[in-house]
């Protein structure tokens, strides 16, 4: 009996080690730079937890165009006629907005009775290389708005932009104000000359964006990863020690792994739009100064008259508060508000403060400015 159990344990141990080695080899073959791919197999085994249940809210794909998908998250009981459309950044994936059960901004809004839509840009490839502002704003976002309105049966919606998605959504709202009832800008950089380290790194004399796009087409994942890891190279490694210490806390481990999985799920940045983004925003601040052009039309933020909620994270290093605050002074809206929270850039969507302190306030602000839902 003892010999049998010892043999079984030995076999299980050897199999476990082999599986671990295989996973690490796979990560190495892919050339992954993020420590996540190498440390995760150990953490999953040590903590005895499964893969983090990311993007848990049920949804349907209601529109596609190339790699872009429009997702619909229908509430069980609809309370508001005005739907919400989330516009996410082209960096990383949209599911940070639908992070984990109980910690998902989308799940929260659906629970509040909103008909929610979110743009998932997918994983851009060669076909998206030449995609520029015009394609993204005048085709993709425009169609997303059209479909969200059509499916929800509403005449206008609340546009909710996050990070670079906020910048793009603002540009869209300035070009096509019709159909936008309210605007929520979350951690959205507007004055890019206050854009922190990224503004420093991308100065025209330091960063030849034309050479990058001409040489590679799309911005390679490795280059994006290098940029992010350069922001806090030491913490990138040492933060794993905290999960080591709390390995017997499954909730903490799952949240940590979910966060790391999202952070390491980098996608290529479509080349042409990257060129335009770096020049119009970081290098020449055209977006903030009303000089950005999309298909010959000027993006003038002062054309936005819809009520605006500007959500700022006090500890944001990607969209520093100074770069976002200016929005409320540029737009023509008379109903405008700034909400500040003591969290970081990602914390607005994933922090434990989200469902308790942040999102109820945001949902309340939107509710006051939305039509109530009436059956039929």
């Amino acid at each position, binding site marked *: 009996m003892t010999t049998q159990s010892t043999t079984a344990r030995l076999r299980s141990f050897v199999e476990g080690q082999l599986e671990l080695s295989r996973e690490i080899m796979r990560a190495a073959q892919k050339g992954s730079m993020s420590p996540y791919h190498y440390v995760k197999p*150990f953490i999953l085994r*040590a903590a005895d937890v499964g893969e983090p249940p990311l993007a848990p809210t049920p949804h349907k794909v209601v529109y596609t165009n190339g790699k872009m998908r429009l997702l619909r998250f229908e509430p069980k009981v609809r309370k508001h006629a005005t739907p919400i459309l989330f516009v996410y950044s082209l960096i990383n994936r949209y599911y940070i907005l639908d992070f984990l059960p109980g910690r998902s901004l989308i799940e929260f809004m659906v629970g509040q009775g909103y008909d929610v839509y979110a743009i998932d840009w997918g994983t851009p490839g060669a076909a998206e290389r030449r995609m520029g502002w015009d394609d993204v704003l005048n085709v993709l976002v425009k169609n997303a708005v059209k479909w969200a309105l059509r499916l929800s049966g509403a005449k206008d919606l609340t546009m909710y932009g996050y990070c670079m998605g906020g910048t793009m959504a603002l540009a869209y709202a300035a070009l096509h104000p019709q159909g936008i009832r309210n605007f929520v800008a979350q951690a959205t950089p507007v004055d890019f000359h206050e854009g922190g380290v990224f503004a420093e*790194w991308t100065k025209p*004399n*330091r960063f030849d964006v034309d050479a990058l796009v001409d*040489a590679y087409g799309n911005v390679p994942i490795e280059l994006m990863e290098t940029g992010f890891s*350069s922001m806090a190279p030491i913490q990138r490694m040492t933060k794993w*020690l905290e999960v080591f210490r709390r390995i*017997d806390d499954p909730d903490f481990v799952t949240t940590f792994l979910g966060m790391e999985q999202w952070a390491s799920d980098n996608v290529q940045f479509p080349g042409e739009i990257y060129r335009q983004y770096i020049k119009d925003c970081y290098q020449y601040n055209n977006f903030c100064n009303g000089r950005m052009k999309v298909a010959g039309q000027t993006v003038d933020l002062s054309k936005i008259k819809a009520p605006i909620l500007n959500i700022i994270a006090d500890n944001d290093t990607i969209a520093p508060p100074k770069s976002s605050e200016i929005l409320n002074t540029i737009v023509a809206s008379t109903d405008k508000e700034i909400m500040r929270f003591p969290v970081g850039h990602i914390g607005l969507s994933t922090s434990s403060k989200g469902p308790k302190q942040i999102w109820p306030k945001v949902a309340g602000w939107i509710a006051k400015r939305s039509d109530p839902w009436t059956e039929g």
Partner: protein
Amino acid sequence: MAKGTSNKQPKLLTRVVKGLGHWLGPETPTGKVFVAAEKSMTKAFDKLGSSDRYLDLVGGALNRALRVRKAYVEAQENWLHLLRLPTSTEMDDLREEVRDAKNQIEALSSQLELVVDALEKSRREAQGVEAVRTNANGSASTERPS
């Protein structure tokens, strides 16, 4: 400890991972040294990352590497062109045309939907008018003295 008790011993891997975390945690002497080293390295990297000289140097090196790659891609394209093979720029042109065509089809289908909606609306209106007329005729005929 008696066998079969519910106090299950954590796995070896769990103990090793937790032990490593604590060994380098702020409450142990080794951890204090580690934390101090981490802080000083972070400070050094922050200083480096905000130094104009360092950023100019790294930026310059990156730009040179990118220009070399760009020149290589251009040379490659010229060779492909000479050999009458499709280049990546030509492939991109093609993809752009396909995307434009897709968008045009979508725009056309939207317009078609509008036309269908308008037709449907006018059909319903015509049906409504017809129904009113029939009703009017019916009531007129019933009202007619026999």
